[in-house]
């Protein structure tokens, strides 16, 4: 054979080896014990190293070469499963994984590769197994507080559930529960979130490089999947802690076909605080005042799953939760004035009620191995009500007559937001190298930003007034999207998407075409670099004065006078796994620019009695800029596991009429943010965990000078303030410790959780205020810092059977 023919034959052989026919393997990843789908499970072809994750129906689809294939399926908290297959055609195979909650190392070995191979930047998927060992405030497992330990995600003030992603505000996070938006995620001033961990299955948070299917918020997507009921047998799960208790029951109505889950949680802080309030009342002199109060919150989750066929499944999900605060203050005084005696008695009853009702109906349909549809109909309502009923009597006793001045003050304040919407998501595996995602959504919003009914009856007369500071608004919001995930070469993959949204309120339209682009380049099988760019439009705003989940934070729509917010974000990242995937690390740089932000005008807040419209109380056309570097290192293997996350960042705002138009640090600008989370498995029944967090102090505006305005012998003191947010409070750091003792019993499993929050009793700043005090007739001013939570040991008992 001459040289040319040898080369030609060699070429043919080579081409044939590179041109092997591809076949598709698809199926479901299911929990062996419960029969419920596992969302986000990893399926990897061990030969090629290519992998996919199961979607929100637990369905996966992977393209492999013809011939011998080894497929490995893994999911955290479960034992890996391996299939040895001989592939000649497309195949359908399901994986049924068995739980192995404490063998985290085995489960997670292969997971890291998908972080390297995925085109998506800034995505973190968390399972409950990873976070349930993290010691938390009052021993309550809280999903939101757990994600605050990740780089790029910060908490606001001490202990709160609000979160701030890459310099964005608390309203810039799209939080979805089974596809329905959640507007208030806080109980008890934000110290607890509304998510009962027993009713939650999976959490995914996206900080940048947003897929085209999402829109409506600038800074993050927190997609929470509710837990589905066990398809095989009935299960009970519960816990008793210092602050709250919970109970969850789930099981099959019809085995492998229909399941139901019901989960409730309630606090008993009202019972615990009663003796404490009495003690405070008896121990301190409040003058003529007496006060009492009551508070509780609850959450209720319900989910029904019905498999119509192998290709169709319907889920119905319902959540209801609220906080209820009531209080009473009574006062009695008497005195003498000029020529009469006076008597005063009054009582004021307060009520605060706020809560969510969230529901979704979801239909998942598999047309064929290539086309999948997820349709969701959803409803979400958040409402807040404040009532004050005050009765008082002022009596003047003259020598010859007595005058009586009764007074009534009956005040009701209401605010609400409601959404009704539908969303369709198609996933189409067009070709082995193309996966197309497309779909759309429509939402009808109903805003009642503030409504007041006020009845007064006093010596000025009787008055019954209804005030609406903003008319009810019913805007429409819709979007369509298209995204192509394309494998350009073996190393280079792209995700090119467009999200087009349109918003309509009264006669005003706002629309935007939002590109969503990301690229991934494999440097080798253990490392990759990624780039992404995304623009977002947000059509609603949250008016808030504080970082708390205060119930009177008000959601308001974009209007003709107040436009939507916009953002552009660029992300560049490097991902690597090493030491045989025992470690994974990433470095990400982001730059985010925000336009048309709004904030309360100086001196404005929603409390008090300023009756102007909300649109007259805000500053608009604000600009925001944030940038930072996030470092993440995770250990997955061995007895000791955990992660270290560090963020170096800045976040800045600018409004023309605030701070004299100059840029100023955002309230939660935090240049340094560090979290160290570790878990050590001593044996099957004992796991220790240690968490240390450090963050730069929050910024505040402090007065720099005080001066007097003197007139007619009267002097009033005023402050001159420094530049906005020019003072930084002390750094925040805290060490938490926890240990889980798990024991298998005849009837099931019990877990004692002992944890210590703030082990070294660090007095972290909560807020600073100035207090006047007088010493030897000289008035001094002292700056005082209030810290909230000292060292708090807690115990929690959990059970399941």
């Amino acid at each position: 054979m001459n040289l040319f023919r040898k080369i030609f034959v060699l070429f043919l052989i080579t081409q044939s080896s590179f041109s092997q026919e591809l076949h598709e393997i698809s199926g479901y990843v299911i929990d062996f014990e419960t029969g419920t789908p596992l969302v986000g499970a990893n399926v990897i072809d061990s030969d090629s190293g290519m992998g996919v994750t199961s979607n929100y129906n637990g369905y996966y689809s992977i393209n492999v070469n013809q011939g011998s294939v080894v497929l490995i399926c893994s999911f955290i908290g479960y034992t890996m499963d391996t299939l040895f297959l001989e592939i000649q055609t497309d195949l359908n195979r399901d994986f049924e994984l068995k739980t192995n909650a404490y063998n985290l190392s085995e489960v997670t070995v292969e997971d890291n590769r998908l972080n390297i191979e995925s085109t998506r930047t800034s995505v973190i998927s968390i399972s409950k197994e990873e976070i349930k060992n993290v010691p938390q405030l009052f021993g309550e497992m809280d999903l939101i507080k757990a994600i605050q330990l990740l780089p790029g995600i910060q908490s606001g003030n001490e202990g709160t559930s609000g979160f701030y992603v890459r310099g964005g505000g608390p309203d810039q996070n799209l939080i979805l529960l089974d596809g329905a938006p959640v507007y208030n995620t806080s109980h008890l001033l934000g110290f607890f979130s509304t998510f009962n961990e027993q009713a939650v299955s999976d959490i995914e948070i996206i900080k940048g490089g947003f897929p085209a299917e999402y829109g409506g918020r600038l800074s993050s997507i927190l997609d929470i999947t509710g837990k589905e009921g066990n398809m095989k047998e009935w299960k009970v799960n519960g816990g008793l802690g210092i602050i709250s208790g919970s109970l969850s029951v789930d099981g099959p109505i019809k085995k492998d076909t229909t399941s139901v889950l019901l989960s409730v949680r309630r606090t008993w802080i009202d019972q615990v605080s009663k003796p404490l309030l009495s003690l405070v009342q008896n121990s301190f002199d409040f003058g003529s005042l007496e006060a009492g109060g009551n508070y509780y919150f609850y959450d209720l989750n319900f989910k029904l799953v019905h498999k119509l066929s192998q290709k169709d499944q319907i889920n119905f999900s319902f959540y209801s939760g609220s906080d209820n605060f009531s209080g009473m203050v009574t006062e009695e005084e008497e005195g003498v004035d000029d020529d009469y005696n006076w008597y005063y008695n009054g009582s004021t009853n307060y009520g605060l009620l706020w809560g969510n009702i969230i529901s979704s109906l979801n239909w998942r349909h598999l047309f064929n191995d290539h086309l999948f549809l997820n349709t969701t109909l959803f409803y979400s309502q958040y409402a807040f009500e404040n009532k004050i009923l005050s009765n008082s009597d002022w009596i003047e006793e003259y020598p010859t007559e007595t005058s009586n001045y009764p007074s009534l003050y009956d005040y009701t304040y209401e605010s609400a937001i409601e959404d009704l919407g539908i969303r369709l998501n198609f996933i189409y595996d067009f070709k082995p190298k193309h996966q197309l995602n497309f779909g759309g959504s429509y939402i009808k919003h109903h805003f009642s930003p503030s409504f007041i009914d006020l009845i007064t009856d006093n010596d000025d007369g009787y008055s019954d007034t209804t005030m609406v500071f903003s008319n009810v608004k019913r805007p429409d919001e819709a979007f369509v999207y298209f995204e192509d995930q394309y494998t350009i070469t073996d190393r280079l993959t792209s995700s090119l998407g467009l999200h087009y949204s349109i918003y309509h309120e009264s006669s005003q339209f706002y629309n935007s075409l939002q590109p969503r682009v990301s690229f991934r380049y494999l440097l080798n099988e253990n490392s990759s670099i990624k780039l992404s760019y995304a623009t977002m439009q947000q059509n609603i705003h949250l008016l808030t004065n504080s970082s708390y989940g205060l119930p009177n934070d008000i959601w308001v729509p974009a209007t003709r006078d107040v436009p939507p917010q916009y953002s552009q974000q660029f992300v560049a990242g490097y991902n690597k796994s090493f030491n045989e995937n025992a470690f994974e690390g990433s470095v990400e740089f982001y730059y985010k620019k925000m336009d048309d932000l709004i904030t309360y005008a100086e001196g404005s807040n929603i409390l008090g009695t300023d009756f102007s419209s909300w649109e007259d109380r805000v500053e608009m056309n604000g600009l925001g800029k944030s940038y930072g570097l996030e470092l993440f290192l995770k250990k997955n293997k061995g007895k000791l596991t955990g992660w270290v996350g560090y963020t170096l960042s800045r976040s800045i705002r600018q409004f023309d009429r605030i701070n004299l138009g100059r840029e100023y640090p955002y309230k939660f600008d935090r240049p340094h943010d560090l979290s160290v989370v570790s878990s050590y498995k001593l044996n099957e029944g004992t796991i220790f965990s240690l968490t240390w967090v450090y963050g730069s102090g929050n910024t505040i505006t402090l007065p720099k000078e005080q001066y007097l305005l003197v007139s007619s012998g009267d002097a009033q003191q005023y402050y001159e303030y420094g530049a906005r947010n020019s003072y930084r409070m002390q750094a925040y750091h805290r060490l938490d410790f926890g240990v889980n003792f798990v024991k298998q019993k005849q009837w099931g499993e019990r877990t004692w959780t002992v944890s210590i929050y703030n082990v070294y009793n660090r007095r972290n700043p909560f807020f600073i205020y100035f207090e006047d005090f007088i010493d030897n007739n000289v008035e001094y001013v002292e700056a005082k810092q209030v810290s909230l939570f000292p060292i708090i040991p807690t115990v929690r008992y959990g059970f399941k059977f």
Partner: protein
Amino acid sequence: MKRLSILLCTFLFIASCEESLNVKIPVENSKLSVTSYLHADDYFDGQNSSVYVSNSISALASTDSYVYTDSIPVINNATVSIYETNALQENVASYLLEFDYDCYCYINTELSPKQNTTYKLEVEADGYPNVYAVDKVPAKPSYEITNFELLGYLDKKSYDGELSQFNLVVNDDPNAQNFYQLKIYIVNTSGSKVRSCYYSISDPSFLNSLNNNHVSGDNYTGRNGYFTDELFNGTSKSFFIQHFKPKGVFDHFYIELRALSKDLYEFNETKKEQNRDSNNPLFVSEPIFLDSNVENGYGIFGGKSASNKAYIPTYFPNNGWLLY
């Protein structure tokens, strides 16, 4: 709502702990704080027109850091001058004020501010940067009283209901932005007693931040209402007023409609809104800066004028009104 804080703070009290902080605030050079009002046609005798001079101190300093004269926190050795200027901003008259120990302020009885006239204030004191301020005394407001009805008894001690109702018709100057303040006083001449009266007006012009504590729906009920000509600039605007009498024996009352300079009105607005407890995370509003027209210092140099009309039934049994 503020009393609600007792309950919420109880919870926080139980949960929180407090410590004194050593907060480092950058040291600023002390400045002068000036409080001065120019009242048209009043002598600068310390009654309605005067200049008070004080100093600023660090936010964390104790009050004994102020300069005191006797026990009053005022500076008594400043050089205070007021200049009357013309349209070209040229000084046409100058007045040097002297410190008076009766009012602890600076006065000059030869100065009687004129309406529609601009004045410049200069204050110099050792150790402080010189301060300057300019303001114009607005023209006296023009108005009439129409449809007047007397509904109660001025001289009945225990009566405290509606005393009268009338229309206040304001003739607004179309060539200027005008700011008003309305007060009604009731007088017992023999007892030298003057009290301010409540009155009630339903008009959107009274729905502003200065009046918000006394507004219910679109109705203002108070004793010291502010309004501007934003909604009726240059026209005659009629306000229907219900006027209430306080308890006591009186013989006449008078209406005082004041015109304020823009600087003075905006100063009053921001003074009301400033909240010292702005860093309370629960009930916070961002701190605001007092709108001052004093260069290099703090405070206000504000012009105002007033037109008074009195109703004196004892002397005018035919229900006449007279300028007061």
